[in-house]
């Protein structure tokens, strides 16, 4: 296959595979805990992280990870401060991230061309260093999610009950926020700061229409995430489309298809009921 002959495409597909695995897994817990906007807020914090990285010479994915973790912990603190009005904490974190990013970008003029590849993603421009960081941190996140899966499920289903029954909810929430922040920072190289939340939420939104169990929702989320990544990358290679946009548009098409399938299924069931 022509696409696999190029080293940059091999790196793109490998990084895409990892990101397509961790984004829907972390995204499922985010969506079930009704915190979908947290990924938007943290991806905007990554903006200032990338700008700081480009200015200081630190690898932008690492600096974005650090900024996102800081933003995530700030968000957790604000959520406790504005208990019951958590969207306020999201607005504060998001605007702080964008404002800081704007200042840093203005200070470091000349980096804007490189910066654009982080804004909209550039999976085909993934370097060996990028791939090493994505692989290392991605596998660490997968391992942590695997170890905390049962606690994360219990907290997502009923946080109050989890707390009462002795699960260390605060510690796990902090750990999960850090995992979310790093996942977002890793995904910005693939789909970009502006589209990263779609990669986390759209496959989950599609899976939730079809799954009847948590295990099913998890497997379908991964399937839809990976499908979007691979179709998106292939489409961008053969049709010369922007990879980030192609990946997210594939996710949107999968979501719309699942909604149509569900509607048709419902109508068929009603029709069968009338006929019998």
């Amino acid at each position, binding site marked *: 296959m022509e696409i696999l002959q190029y080293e940059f495409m091999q790196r793109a597909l490998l990084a895409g595979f990892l990101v397509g695995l961790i984004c829907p897994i972390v995204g499922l817990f985010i969506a079930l805990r009704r915190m979908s906007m947290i990924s938007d807020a943290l991806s905007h914090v990554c903006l200032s992280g990338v700008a700081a990285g480009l200015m200081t010479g630190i690898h932008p994915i690492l600096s974005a990870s650090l900024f996102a973790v800081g933003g995530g912990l700030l968000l957790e603190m604000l959520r406790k401060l504005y208990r019951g009005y958590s969207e306020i904490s999201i607005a504060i974190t998001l605007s702080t991230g964008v404002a800081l990013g704007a200042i840093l970008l203005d200070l470091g003029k000349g980096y804007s061309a490189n910066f654009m590849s982080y804004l909209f993603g550039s999976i085909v421009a993934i370097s060996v260093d990028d791939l090493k960081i994505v692989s290392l941190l991605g596998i660490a996140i997968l391992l942590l999610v695997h170890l905390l899966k049962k606690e994360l499920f219990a907290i*997502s289903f009923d946080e109050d009950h989890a707390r009462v*029954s002795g699960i260390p909810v605060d510690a796990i929430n902090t750990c999960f926020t850090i995992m979310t922040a790093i996942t977002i920072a890793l995904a910005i190289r693939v789909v970009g700061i502006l589209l990263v939340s779609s990669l986390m939420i759209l496959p989950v939104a599609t899976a939730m229409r079809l799954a009847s*169990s948590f295990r099913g929702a998890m497997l379908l989320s991964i399937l839809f995430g990976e499908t979007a990544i691979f179709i998106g990358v292939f489409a961008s290679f053969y049709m010369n489309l922007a990879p980030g946009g192609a990946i997210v548009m594939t996710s949107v098409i999968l979501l719309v298809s699942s909604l149509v399938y569900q509607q048709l299924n419902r109508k068929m069931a009603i029709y069968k009921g009338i006929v019998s």
Partner: protein
Amino acid sequence: MNKEDIIKIEGMTFTYVCHPILNNMHLRVAAGDVVAITGPNGSGKSTLLKLVLGQLKPSAGSIKVFGSEAHKVKDRYRIGYLAQKATGFNSQFPATAREVIRSGRVPRRGLFHPLSKPDHLLVDQVLQQVGMTEFADRPVGTLSGGQQQRILLARALVSEPELLILDEPNTGVDRAALDSMYRLLKELSLLQGITMLIVSHELAGLGSLVSHQVCLDKHICSCSCHQYNDPENQLKNCKRRITSQPTNTKEPCYGNFTV
């Protein structure tokens, strides 16, 4: 023979922003007791429950559960908790009844330890106990209110609790489902000797299950260790006592103490 105290409340007062919610309260619940806590709205029932669960700390006095201060109890899985249905989960949550029950076993296993085969067998056993085996793989959101209540009870039971706390178990559940749940609780009380604390504003149906009834209105207004046959009348008496004679019960409410 003295039975072990599961809950011991001594001279406990809880105030919220200078407003006394519970005042100088004494109560002992021994192993195997089934105690119903009743009282009108705002009487402090939910606050008492939060104090027992360690979510709040008393302003004065002490509240001990399993011999430790309630907010410092380490093995919390020893306490099973069934919350009010109204404050429960999102019915769109993609999880089967079995997955929900399994989550009740998580605290007993501890961090980083996956559930093992005996845990899964216990889940099956509890499913059978609550009569929900055939619904085990159904999405929990598609079950009726009574069935969901049973699943949540099973989640509480699967941690093999020594103390079971039920907060308004009658909310949003029809009479038949409630009677069936009370029969199950009676069975658990008799066969496994689980201590129970049931907070409810309605006593109907609880009669044969409860060994002690505590009537609350910021302090204990009345306490009965009798098995009563006329719960409706008992509640009326309780309400009358609250409105006409708000006394401060300083004696520990236990044993043969009857107002």
